[in-house]
């Protein structure tokens, strides 16, 4: 009887490629086509980004004359304007500090070990410092009006503050939509569906064009604040549906049990059993 020899053992990398890239004829052809496409795209991209790019040029014309690739000299020349826009040049370190601070706080909040009450205090302190730095007018810093805020720090501030303001509003809207009082229920439903049904840019236009018309003559609202109001309302409508989804995922029995204990509506939804259960489901949807 002839001895059966074990098949020659393939090197691990080869075995992996065979299993994942060339498991069948169709698969192998796909891999080869993709590799070719990838090579073409990457070589074109790298050529434009790196090899044909111009790193140093006195002006735009020289930049275009010097090479056919990206003009990094432009970015080098304008990076401060790109990042901070019209914020006063000599005070841009303040905007930079705010950016770093807000990014840092967000980064810290990703670490579950730090999810304690102290983190909240750190956030409050961070926000107070950020606002003070951006506005100035205290501690000998020059006052910078919000019209001059722009660039990355403004993006971060709008995003952060709209999230902070939108969440409580979203919870109220969601509770209102689940209310047993018909008028409150229909008003909240209408508000949510309306804001979700129109584009964000409409909300921004409404806030910036209509607010001055709606307020008494002479009363003006800061432009940045108007944008913040528009974004907040829009975000609140979206988050309200996430919160409602979270509330709906709680078995009805829990609400009935809370009722039987004699808890009122607010106690029931906010302090009682359902909400703590709800918050565990919520954050994922909130993203």
């Amino acid at each position: 009887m002839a001895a059966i020899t074990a098949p020659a053992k393939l090197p691990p990398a080869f075995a992996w490629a065979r299993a994942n890239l060339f498991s069948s004829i169709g698969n192998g052809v796909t891999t080869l086509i993709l590799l070719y496409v990838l090579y073409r795209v990457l070589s074109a991209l790298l050529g434009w980004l790196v090899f044909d790019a111009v790193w140093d040029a006195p002006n735009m014309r020289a930049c275009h004359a010097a090479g056919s690739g990206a003009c990094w000299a432009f970015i080098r020349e304008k990076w401060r304007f790109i990042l901070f826009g019209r914020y006063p040049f000599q005070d841009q370190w303040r905007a930079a500090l705010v950016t770093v601070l807000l990014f840092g706080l967000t980064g810290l909040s990703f670490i579950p070990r730090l999810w304690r009450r102290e983190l909240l205090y750190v956030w409050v302190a961070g926000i107070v410092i950020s606002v003070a730095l951006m506005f100035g007018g205290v501690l000998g810093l020059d006052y910078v009006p919000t019209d001059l805020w722009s660039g990355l720090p403004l993006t971060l501030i709008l995003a952060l503050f709209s999230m902070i303001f939108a969440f409580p509003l979203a919870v109220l809207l969601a509770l209102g939509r689940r209310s047993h009082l018909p008028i409150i229920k229909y008003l909240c439903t209408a508000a949510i569906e309306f804001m979700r049904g129109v584009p964000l840019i409409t909300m921004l236009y409404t806030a910036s064009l209509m607010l001055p018309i709606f307020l008494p003559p002479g009363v003006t609202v800061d432009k940045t604040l108007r944008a913040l109001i528009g974004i907040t309302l829009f975000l609140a409508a979206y988050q309200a549906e996430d919160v409602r989804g979270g509330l709906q995922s709680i078995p009805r029995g829990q609400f009935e049990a809370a009722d039987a204990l004699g808890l009122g509506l607010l106690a029931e939804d906010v302090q009682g059993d359902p909400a703590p259960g709800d918050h565990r489901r919520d954050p994922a949807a909130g993203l």
Partner: protein
Amino acid sequence: MTMSGSTAPTGAAPSFWNNPTIRSAFWQVLTLLALVLVVWYFIHNSLINLQRQSIATGFGFLGRESGFDIGEALIPYSPSSTYRDAFLVGLLNTIEVAVLGIVFSTIFGVLLGIARLSPNWLLSRLALIYVEVVRNIPLLLQLLFLYSVLNVVAPGPRDAWHPVPGVYISNRGVFLPAPTADPSHLYIGIAFLAGIVAVVFLDRWARKRQDSTGQIFPVLPVGTAVILGLPILTWLAFGAPSAVSFPELAGFNFNGGVSMSPELTALLGGLVIYTTSYIGEIVRSGILAVSHGQTEAAGALGLKRGLILRLVVLPQAVRIIVPPMTSQYLNLTKNSTLAVAIGFPEFFSVVNTQMNQTGQAIEGMLCIMAAYLSVSLTISLLMNIYNARIALKGR
């Protein structure tokens, strides 16, 4: 489930303030009153403000001459047309972008979702990179990038990019070959629709027959043959008119074929690229959500792979996919307003021009809200009807 009043001891009537009916009526009346007051205050202020700035009110402007031109119009339009016509042009452009965008992003999204699940490591990783890169860059930035590529970086018509024979990309837009207009096209279209209707009836009949006799009718190959065959037969019956018009350089631009302006190309391309990444993830999650046990059970029953996919996995996956897909369709429609940044004349940018010309911002915003709400609600309605048809029917 009633509120706090339900815990009142039986027998004793609840006091006035604890009577649930009175309490709920009180809060509702209070809310309504507050709302009416706020709205009245806003209207009062706006009347004063508009009078001070001597801005007209009402929708009278709709009948007046608009005085501005629109680059792309699906219906006849000139600067001497009314604002009503201008709005209609914008609305049609929005609907055009929405419909084309939804069709293309659905097709590419399904392909992307399947690619993400491919056993081919390279393919699934590239699909993952696509999703993560595209989803994490703001759509506005992508639109501006595409538009600047087409408008600034792309060469003039004389040395247009020419990736495939017959296709030209220049700063005047994208030019594609198209069949020369022929009267037979109408009948080919009718034959195609007739084929679809016939197959729907064929499918019903086949199901009924399978239910009663157990015999399986090959609906898929026969249906494909009918849907493709009828238009081809019609085409042959008309003597197979096969003239194709290719775009050709004439003077400073191209003649012939079909063309898409840089604005429309950038908007449609950007929306499709962006929405595809979301739809791909929705499709992937839908397919993954069908439990593996179902596939195994179907396999144990002796169904072939194709049949397992068609009869067991896909029907259940579609149920999970449809509701989030509806949201994406709505998002695409609403995101088309970003065209205001690249100058494609969809509804929002047309109304924006009107608001700048007449100063009647309130009326303009009302038109915008009404238009987008109706488009959104129409899409929702259609998708909800479809969803109700495929939803799990509890017995």
